[in-house]
């Protein structure tokens, strides 16, 4: 299908307009609410690991961890996981909750008749999410550095790659979560269950090999798992293409499945939500 330049420019407008709307609204109404809660939650995870390592473990971690994680830097491992987790939570919240928020605010019917397509609309939210979450993750990194945690210092290229891979994985997941929320007509239970489950199985704060097989297989069904496997070595500066490619392929493959499922489910979930609102 060939697309006219006008149409592309128009989609860009929708992305930008959604971004500006979200940015303005949050800057005016909730300038600190989300920032505080994200940074606080991440900071507590890092602090817990820091205290556990120094006060409980006597600045040592057992050999099993080093073997499973591929590094004995326990606090660094948890800190990177906490940063990635914060990124995932905020990205998912913004993008997945966009449509159900429209329903709650009574604007979903207006959105349905507007000529804007869903993809640029949701991408606008993701753009906002990346921008605002970027600030939050930067603040969280600052906290970790203050605590004396050694964070990896990747090259800009690697950092950009990590951001891109994680963003694709989280974006594709949020489409499906968004559809589930619209179907269920609620967000609170869905979002918390998703966050807590992924926090356990995706390998954010501990190597996945600690988990029972069943949960490890379940984790493979989530795009973020493989994306994290690629992100960690990239952040540490390693670009061994032969080693990273299989996991990268899995991350992108699973993401594509979620994208397709999301775009198939969303219109159905949306029409259900509109039905409900009258």
């Amino acid at each position, binding site marked *: 299908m060939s697309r006219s330049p006008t149409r592309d420019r128009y989609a860009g407008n929708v992305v930008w307009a959604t971004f500006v709307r979200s940015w303005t609204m949050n800057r005016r109404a909730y300038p600190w609410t989300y920032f505080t809660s994200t940074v606080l939650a991440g900071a507590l995870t890092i602090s*817990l690991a820091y*205290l*556990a390592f120094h*006060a*409980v*473990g006597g600045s*040592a971690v057992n050999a099993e961890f080093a073997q499973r994680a591929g590094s004995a830097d326990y606090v660094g491992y948890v800190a990177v996981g906490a940063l990635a987790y914060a990124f995932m939570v905020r990205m998912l919240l913004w993008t997945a909750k966009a449509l159900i928020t429209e329903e709650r605010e009574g604007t979903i019917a207006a959105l349905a008749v507007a000529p804007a397509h869903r993809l640029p609309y949701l991408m606008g939210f993701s753009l906002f999410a990346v921008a605002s979450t970027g600030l939050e993750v930067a603040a969280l990194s600052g906290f970790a550095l203050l605590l004396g945690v050694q964070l990896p210092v990747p090259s800009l290229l690697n950092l950009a790659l990590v951001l891109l891979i994680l963003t694709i994985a989280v974006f594709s997941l949020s489409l499906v979560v968004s559809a589930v929320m619209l179907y269920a007509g609620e967000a609170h239970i869905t979002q918390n269950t998703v966050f807590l489950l992924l*926090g*356990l199985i995706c390998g954010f704060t501990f190597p996945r090999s600690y988990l029972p097989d069943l949960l490890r297989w379940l984790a493979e069904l989530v795009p973020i798992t493989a994306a994290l496997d690629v992100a960690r070595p990239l952040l540490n500066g390693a670009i061994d293409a032969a080693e990273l490619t299989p996991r990268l392929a899995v991350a992108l493959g699973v993401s594509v499945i979620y994208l397709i499922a999301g775009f198939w489910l969303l219109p159905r979930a949306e029409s259900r939500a509109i039905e409900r609102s009258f």
Partner: protein
Amino acid sequence: MIRASMKVFAAEGLKQHRRMASNKTMVFSQLLWPLLELFTIYFTIRPVADSGEQRWPLAATPGGLLAFLATGALGFAFFFALVQSAWHFSFERQTGTLELLFLSPANRLVLVIANGVGALVQNLWLFLCFAGALVFVPGVLRLAHPAMFVVVFLALLIPAIAWGAFLNSMLIFSRDSAFLFTVFSDPMAFVSGARIPVAFLPGWIAAVGTVLPLTASLVVVRGALLQANTLADLGGSLIQLAVISAVLVALAALLLKLGERRAQRTGQLRLF
């Protein structure tokens, strides 16, 4: 007075039953979320808990660490259920029914205590599940007397009710209940020793923890269930809990008086 209070409890109970009972997933999630969180923290801390240094004997074995964290999760869930009830109380303001509540002759303090009734039913259920699980895991439960289960339950329940009344009364002043979630979720669990013992926390954080009722509740829960402490062993913590609970209820009563007077003066009960 007592009859009037019972009426308030019955009415609140009915209201919360109608609001919550239709939502089975809500009840399910009260058990699922704490469990997911429990295992995440367990796997995160395990690599350092048995690093060879024996600084934390209670957590030296996997079962011991899990039991320590599970008691922490139970205590936290007890208190957090009340935080949630306070959050629901803020809906009264948003939907305009707070003003109606205050026009009724119901005693304000009874009202905010009764607001936690639904949370208490949840907590009883959670406690029974937890006690059941603990009895079936071999080698973890060390109990001086079966009646200590009752002591543990009361040491969680009474401070939690006082905590709920205190939080509810604060919401007279503001519609913004998001801060409750921010301040009294993870930070409360961290500071009160739900995840690692208070002894390992830096002094100033541990000092904040002593003010929170959850800290002393957890000392009682762990002492009684995991270390075979008797009533006499736990006397100090029980007195501490009684004092904190009394202070919280008194503060709640005071805040309600001040808040209502202020709301009458400024006409803010209905505003948000």
